[in-house]
């Protein structure tokens, strides 16, 4: 059930009315409804994997209580390992089993040993990387003493499976999200209006921006050998925008639909295409995952404090980003993508002054300042695009061939196709830049405008979405 389908619209409207009008606004009944709706939403994809969410949730609910109750650190650790074992076990089996077996076979083949290739064909349950991380943070936070274990099973199950963000996040922290299931939710008109706007914006980003870019990207990726170097570069730029439009569009819809039900989800994107250095980029891109890795991997590797040893910091960056790459997909291409981002961080460790002043330029703008900002953004985009070659490639050979084709004289030709898409991409980037300077949480914060103009914008967006919604591509991050 994709967000840009009639099925989801009908499903959501039904849940919305039941939620506010048939539950007498009692929290427990509302939570029960959310739970039932979320399980139905998930089962609509594949009912067989519903049991995995239930197992993961129950294991963490029980482990959380045991961690809290445990009289000593050893017992606390034991229950934490139970929680980690269940979640990482599920993730490891369903997402990485085939990958590791194949990698071992390949490794042995390098040394001349032939191992009969007998791998299991395992289907990846949708959303597993997201909800397992969400429940893991719950157990770890209880272990660290930052959060009290929940005693309300229904609220906890609803927290893990909350349908607006179940499939692709934002990966919420229990400390922010779980308490929202335990208190009375009120329908606030202003928040609801903002939620509706954010849904509209999310659909626009997904259907009009990401899917139209995706059409061209699909052509280029299908046979890169038939395009010149410059077109392959355009393909990378369009893929960057597609990925951003697709995922931030999804996040906007998730935040908007949650808000209509009285929940606040964390912000997942903060104009990342405008980032002025790689560190800045990671503060703006997929914030819920980046902060998750920072808090639960990087900080754990650093022993919970600030490290002074530069070698260890570099090691920790590499490990964190490589694991983050692997989180995206069971393929060496994602590991390389992550490792490249780890590599990009090294100069900032040795030369902290390299970090750009990421505080947004305020008017009045200076010409020199604007050019400096543009140069920094361009450099960040180039580094990002280079890493994205590995992100989008099905295998390392493909990525290498793609890169080598870019590094050919055809890089300096005029692009033979897709010029209009480049214009569209640049227009979108300018729009993003303006929105960032406006310091809005999302681009449709247009309340001060006259009502006629606002409604005109809404209608223009809604009709454009309807017109361009012909591909109905799945959200890219659903596969992770």
């Amino acid at each position, binding site marked *: 059930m994709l967000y840009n389908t*009639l*099925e989801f619209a009908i499903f959501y409207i039904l849940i919305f009315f039941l939620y*506010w009008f048939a539950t007498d606004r009692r929290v427990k009944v509302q939570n029960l409804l959310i739970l039932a709706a979320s399980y139905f939403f998930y089962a609509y994809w594949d009912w067989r994997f519903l049991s995995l969410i239930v197992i993961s949730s129950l294991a963490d609910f029980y482990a959380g209580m045991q961690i809290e109750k445990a009289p000593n650190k050893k017992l606390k650790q034991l229950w934490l390992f139970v929680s980690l074992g269940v979640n990482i076990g599920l993730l490891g089996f369903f997402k990485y089993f085939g990958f590791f077996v194949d990698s071992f076979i390949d490794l042995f083949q390098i040394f001349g040993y032939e191992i009969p290739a007998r791998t299991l064909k395992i289907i990846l349950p949708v959303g597993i990387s997201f909800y397992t991380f969400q429940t893991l943070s719950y157990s770890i936070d209880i272990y660290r003493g930052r959060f009290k274990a929940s005693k309300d099973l229904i609220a906890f199950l609803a927290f893990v499976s909350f349908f607006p963000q179940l499939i692709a996040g934002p990966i919420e922290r229990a400390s922010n999200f779980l308490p929202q299931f335990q208190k009375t939710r009120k*329908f606030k*008109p202003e928040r*609801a*209006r903002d939620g*509706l706007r954010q849904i509209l914006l999310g659909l626009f980003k997904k259907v009009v921006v990401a899917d139209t870019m995706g059409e061209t990207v699909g052509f280029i990726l299908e046979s890169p050998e038939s395009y010149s170097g410059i077109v392959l570069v355009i393909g990378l730029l369009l893929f960057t925008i597609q990925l951003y439009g697709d995922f931030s569009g999804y996040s906007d819809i998730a935040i908007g639909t949650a808000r209509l039900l009285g929940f606040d989800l964390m912000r997942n994107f903060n104009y990342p295409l405008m980032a002025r250095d790689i560190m800045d980029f990671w503060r703006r891109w997929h914030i819920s995952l980046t902060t998750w890795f920072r808090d639960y991997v990087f900080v754990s590797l650093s022993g919970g404090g600030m490290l002074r040893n530069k070698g260890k910091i570099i090691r920790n960056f590499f490990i964190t980003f490589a694991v983050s790459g692997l989180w995206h997909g069971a393929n060496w291409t994602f590991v390389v993508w992550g490792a490249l981002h780890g590599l990009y961080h090294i100069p900032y460790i040795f030369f902290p002054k390299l970090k750009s002043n990421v505080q947004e330029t305020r008017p009045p703008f200076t010409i020199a300042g604007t050019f400096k900002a543009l140069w920094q953004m361009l450099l960040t985009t180039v580094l990002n695009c280079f890493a994205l070659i590995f992100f989008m490639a099905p295998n390392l050979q493909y990525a290498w061939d793609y890169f080598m084709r870019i590094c050919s004289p055809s890089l300096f030709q005029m692009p033979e196709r897709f010029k209009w898409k480049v214009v569209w991409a640049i227009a979108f980037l300018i729009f993003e830049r303006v929105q960032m300077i406006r310091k809005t949480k999302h681009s449709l914060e247009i309340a001060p405008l006259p009502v006629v103009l606002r*409604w005109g914008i*809404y*209608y223009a967006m*809604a*009709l454009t979405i*309807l*017109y*361009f*919604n*012909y591909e*109905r591509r799945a959200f890219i991050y659903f596969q992770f």
Partner: protein
Amino acid sequence: MRQILLRTTLFLLPILLLLGGLEYVQKELPNDYAFKKANFEAGLDQWEVLILGSSHSYLGIDPHHIARPTFNLAYTAQTLAFDQFLLEKYIDQLTKLKFIVLPISYPTYGSESYLYPGIYNKTYYYHHYYGSNLFTKWYEPENYSLLALLTVKRAVDQTSQYYKGEGDALVECDNTGWYGPTVTRDLEENGRKSAGFHDLFYDTELYETNARYLTEMIQLCKSKGIHPILVSTPMWHTYLSGLNPDRLQHMVQTTDAIARKHQILYLNHMDDPLYRSSDFFDANHLSPSGAEKFSKYLNSIMQSLENGQLAAHAQPFDIQP
């Protein structure tokens, strides 16, 4: 909350009205299904030959070159379930029917077009025009709404095409149900792509169901004294070489076994060297010249069968094309 609901409804109302209007207009536009149905039903008491099947026979068998009243009821992605539905619906009204041509191609046993996603799913048309209830998910809006099936963009494009006076382009077939495209496609590239495309929705679990549909159609025809003829139309080598060899072998062997069991003809011309590149519209569909060649050949087979010069159960090697 009331105010928000009211405003949202007010906002959505013009959009819903617009979509409703577009759905209505779209339903009124001419299309191949409506055109075919009207022409087919107008001659129910005269057709002696009926062509069923998918695009391979829709483009590949031209009734103009068959010397008896013939209608081509085949259409793109019309799989055996729909063939059987149409045959059962009309067989009693086809009082003069002597031959039924049932084309078999690579996707035949592994595909079911009412299971296809999105635009490839033809359920709506068979439900709307012929009353078929072959649904997998009855609740999917694509089964009932053209707008949901085609999407707004295609619906707007078609509507504007019609109102610009290009309505003829919305109907591609002629009044015999046949479609002869005037352009051609690159046979090399198309062969590779089409072969891959036909594996996209292929499901080996459908083998038995589709074989059963075919068998039931043959039995029905024979019970009514009608000759069923199984044919595989010519394909270009770039397409054939891109197909999964196991699936291709399964198709040929299954059809051969069914033909032998029921003592009917199976004319397999997939790899027929008589057909040159100019005889193809693309790597798996015949052009008008190819369709002419194949239809004339089919006509001669039907005449031989009727004259008793050819046994109904003769095998391909008995026949000189």
